[in-house]
């Protein structure tokens, strides 16, 4: 009998199961969730022959170690790191065959934050609302990995990957986020909008899957008072009372009460997922951030 599963030997700082998330439930308070670096997650799935929606592991900073109970093809991508099987170095960013009972070690990120581990067949935990993603904000999906946990794998893919190694862009030294106007840009002074799009911010160590928090010059409001709750989108730059912009990532709340000054382009969020605390962030205004309105 084959035992299509793997044991978690070292869970690492934060390793979660992620796929493409739970779209379509925001009106019930359910965040999108899903892999923060989506291109990296899609790529490792492709490398092992999985469909794009298969669940992968997302590691944070210091990797993880797994012991598959069956022979399985794996690929590690996202933040570059050392990968070993039973202590022997193997390729990062390429499919690797791991024998049953061997120890796969995904090392700490050399640079970047989040690593992605695809296993042939995908992590087959029970889906919740159509997704296997761990949602840290609302507690949906499987809990983060713990040492000693055993997780099931899906049926091995029949198709083989059509590529066996691929270039991946390295995490940027400086994070450049293109920003289109948000619904409440006019709640901020012109000086604040200039500050946002011309001054440097830094990634705060308080960042997580919910939001990329920043440190830098606070944004001054032109309109005081409270904003009634309104819907939030991926990439929304919410500005809490301390004036420091927070970029909403996959586990962001679906409604919120702080004004959204701008929205980061979805394509730029993969890089945001890999920016280590201290990285310089530059918000670049596009689409008339400081004034133009449609409608």
């Amino acid at each position, binding site marked *: 009998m084959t035992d299509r599963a793997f044991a978690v030997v070292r869970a690492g700082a934060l390793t979660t199961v992620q796929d493409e998330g739970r779209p379509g439930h925001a009106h019930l*308070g359910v965040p999108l969730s899903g892999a923060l670096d989506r291109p990296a997650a899609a790529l490792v799935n492709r490398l092992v022959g999985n469909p794009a929606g298969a669940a992968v592991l997302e590691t944070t900073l210091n990797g993880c170690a797994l012991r598959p109970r069956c022979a399985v093809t794996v690929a590690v991508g996202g933040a570059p790191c050392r990968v070993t099987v039973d202590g022997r170095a193997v390729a990062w960013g390429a499919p690797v065959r791991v024998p049953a009972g061997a120890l796969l070690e995904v090392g700490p990120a050399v640079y970047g934050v989040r690593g992605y581990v695809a296993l042939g067949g995908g992590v087959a935990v029970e889906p919740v609302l159509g997704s296997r993603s761990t949602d840290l904000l609302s507690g949906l999906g499987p809990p983060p990995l713990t040492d000693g946990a055993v997780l099931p794998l899906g049926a091995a893919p029949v198709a083989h990957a059509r590529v066996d190694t691929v270039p991946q862009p390295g995490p940027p030294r400086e994070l450049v986020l293109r920003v289109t106007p948000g*619904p*409440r840009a006019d709640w901020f002074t012109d000086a604040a909008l200039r500050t946002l799009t011309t001054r440097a911010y830094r990634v705060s160590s308080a960042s997580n899957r919910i939001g990329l928090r920043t440190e830098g010059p606070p944004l001054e409001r032109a309109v005081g008072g409270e904003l009634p709750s*309104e*819907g939030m*989108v991926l990439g929304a730059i919410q500005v809490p009372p301390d004036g420091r912009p927070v970029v909403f990532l996959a586990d962001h709340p679906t*409604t919120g009460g702080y004004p959204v000054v701008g*929205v980061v382009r979805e394509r730029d969020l993969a890089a945001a997922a890999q920016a280590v605390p201290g990285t310089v962030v530059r918000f670049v205004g596009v689409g008339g951030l400081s004034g133009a*309105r449609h*409608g």
Partner: protein
Amino acid sequence: MKVLPMGERALLVELADGESAAALHAELVRRRAAGDLVVREIVPAARTVLLDGLDGPDGPDAPLRLAARLPTWEIPPLPARADDVLEIPVRYEGPDLADVAALWGVPVRDVARIHSAAEFRVAFCGFAPGFGYLTGLGGVPDVPRRATPRTAVPAGSVGLAGPYTGVYPRSSPGGWQLIGTTDAVLWDHARVPAALLSPGARVRFVPEGR
């Protein structure tokens, strides 16, 4: 109606009040069901409706085109819902009953009477899966949030904040003033639908044992 930009694929529509937002929400849901609107998320809130994931046949121009079209729509007033009023049994014995009674200027026992006499509507959801912001409590002052939020509010707690009533689907920190407890299950992802309360639903709170 004001149509505000929200990134590349979303629009935030601002209305005069919650009632108009609810009417627009109902109309958007109707149009999507009829196949006249392609959008991933329709998220009502206090006085806005967010449309996110506007792609579909209109391509990348979808938000701009819809933004131009929306203000020309005839929005029918909120239709009277044909479906039943959902009844949620409550034990009115929350720790903040006395504070709420003082704020309303009534004896403590009247909090349950006033609260259970109202018909509520789920204006919007958020905060946690299955948490609904219910409107419909009239004639009494809005209740401020607690100055210091509790670190743990038990699941099933019925609370008040501002013009809203809500029920905590699971234990979490929270600053609402708690007036009671229910055994109703607000969220169960193994159930279809997972959320007991969805935007637009009508709700009554029924004192338990009556």
